[in-house]
């Protein structure tokens, strides 16, 4: 290989996103070969429509994981935020204000998870496991376990989840808008450097004067906020707030982040990786439905893909180091 070709190969291999993109393309061809309808415009449109509402929480979870913490409560906060909105609507609060208040409430939930974790030193795995049970419980208490009508004005549902043209939905703009903001924070803003330092080596970050507690708390807030926003978008799309909506989302979000190269130990990860990881998860879910596999298979395949992705990432990383010599 010439020097330039070698350099290019190394640069490509270092991008974890490349391997996961290849896995996605293989997966797409697999489902397409079994059932050509998989790539029909109607099905692609469905995929594009449902991915953002589940992908937005994964973006927040990614930031928090890079900072070295977990959030197992996102699925419950996802449901809580929508249901809290309907509760305010029933009390006669202005719809727009209701949503703002609900998003404020879910940010406070993130703040509480962050404060408890940071101030008491309890692992976030435990704090947010508590959050998972508590907020789902509150959601069930609010509704008595029944679905609620998400009575929002049409303008609102259009802004959150309206169809703009074929293959372009409002929720995609939210997804990519937030992705771009988070990407700029991580790669181009000092707060991103603080997030990576906090998750990569907390003591070093502290010694360099970074307030790691504050960094973590802000990431907890962002994680809850994005979960709540995802819930609002789903409810706007369905015109319903469901007590069981977002069940299992916590694991889907962590899976998407890990498939995309985010480290379970903190200190590494990218937004683009999570976006690709999220689409791959949804492609597998949707593809299994299209080929009429029993729905139980979804978790099984995602589990396998998570493990394969992590192994490939590790392998490629080591190879890239070896090539450099």
């Amino acid at each position, binding site marked *: 290989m010439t020097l330039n070709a070698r350099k290019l190969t190394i640069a490509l291999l270092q991008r974890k996103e490349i391997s996961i993109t290849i896995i996605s393309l293989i997966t797409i061809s697999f489902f397409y070969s079994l059932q050509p309808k998989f790539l029909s415009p109607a099905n692609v449109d469905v995929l594009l429509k449902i991915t953002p509402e589940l992908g937005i929480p994964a973006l927040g979870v990614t930031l928090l994981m890079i900072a070295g913490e977990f959030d197992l409560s996102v699925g419950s906060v996802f449901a809580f935020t929508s249901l809290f909105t309907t509760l305010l609507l029933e009390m006669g609060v202005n719809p727009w204000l209701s949503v703002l208040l609900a998003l404020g409430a879910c940010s406070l939930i993130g703040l509480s998870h962050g404060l408890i974790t940071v101030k008491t030193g309890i692992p976030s795995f435990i704090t947010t496991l508590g959050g998972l049970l508590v907020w789902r419980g509150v959601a069930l208490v609010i509704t008595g376990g029944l679905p609620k009508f998400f009575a929002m004005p049409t303008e609102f549902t259009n802004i959150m989840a309206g169809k703009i043209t074929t293959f372009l939905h409002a929720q995609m703009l939210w997804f990519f808008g937030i992705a771009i903001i988070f990407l*700029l924070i991580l790669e*181009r*803003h*000092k707060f*991103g*450097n*603080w997030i*990576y*330092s906090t998750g*990569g*080596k907390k*003591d*070093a*970050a*502290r*010694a*360099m*004067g*970074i307030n790691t507690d504050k960094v973590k708390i802000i990431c907890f807030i962002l994680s809850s906020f994005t979960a709540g926003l995802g819930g609002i978008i789903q409810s706007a799309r369905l015109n319903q707030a469901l007590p069981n909506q977002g069940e299992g989302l916590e694991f889907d979000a962590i899976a998407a982040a890990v498939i995309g190269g985010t*480290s379970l130990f903190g*200190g*590494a990860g990218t937004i683009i990786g999570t976006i690709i990881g999220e689409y791959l998860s949804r492609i597998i879910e949707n593809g299994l439905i299209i080929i009429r596999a029993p729905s139980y298979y979804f978790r099984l395949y995602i589990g396998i893909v998570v493990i394969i992705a992590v192994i490939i990432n590790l392998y490629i990383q080591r190879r890239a*180091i070896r090539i*450099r010599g």
Partner: protein
Amino acid sequence: MSKNKPLVEMIDIHKWFGRVYALQGVDFTVNHAEVVGLVGDNGAGKSTLMKILSGLYPPDKGEIYFDGKKVKFSSPKDAMNLGIETIYQDIAIAPLMNITRNVFMGRELERKIGPISFLDLRRMERESLNALRNLGLEIEDMKMPVENLSGGQRQGVVIARAMYFKSKLLILDEPTNNLSVKESLRVLEFIRELKNQNISSVFITHNLHHVYPVADKIVVLSHGKKVGEFRKEETSIEHITHLITLG
């Protein structure tokens, strides 16, 4: 800043940890552009004394003067702002982050685009490259994760960072621990380079053979007390070893 006065003067420093009397009235001075070896057996109080100087612990009694002015630190940030930088045993870097991001950790360079301040990555990269070159570290790729560097190179990155931010005093806590002989020699080279650039350093170690070649002055602690302070010319490795072991 007066050149006649010492850079650091710690006078009659006492520190208790519960019932443990860790420092029992220690005086400690560092002059400008001086390499001080701080030696002693484990538990002699070396690290405690330096943690007080770096702002991590307050002394229970005693005074600290820096550049002739009396100072009181409430956090490491206060000490850093004055130009006292500490490199701990478990190096102050995040292994998964690249060299540039580590050099500027917590002190990022920014550039305004409209109302928002973004990282000035190009300048950060250029400055990191220069800082490493000034130290004699030849690494080209500033985007390389630090985990790919050798132990000595990592120490180099941290020392280059301290030099770039114009520290006046660098405290190195066992910088040659876990390093090969060759790598240790490189770190000693870095310390000599610091002195050339008029930066003082305190080299904490229990390995006398590492500090002896570079030190101007050697201070010996034992059981929380200073038991000796010598210009290198006035002493020998044998003499100091004797002091450390017998107190």
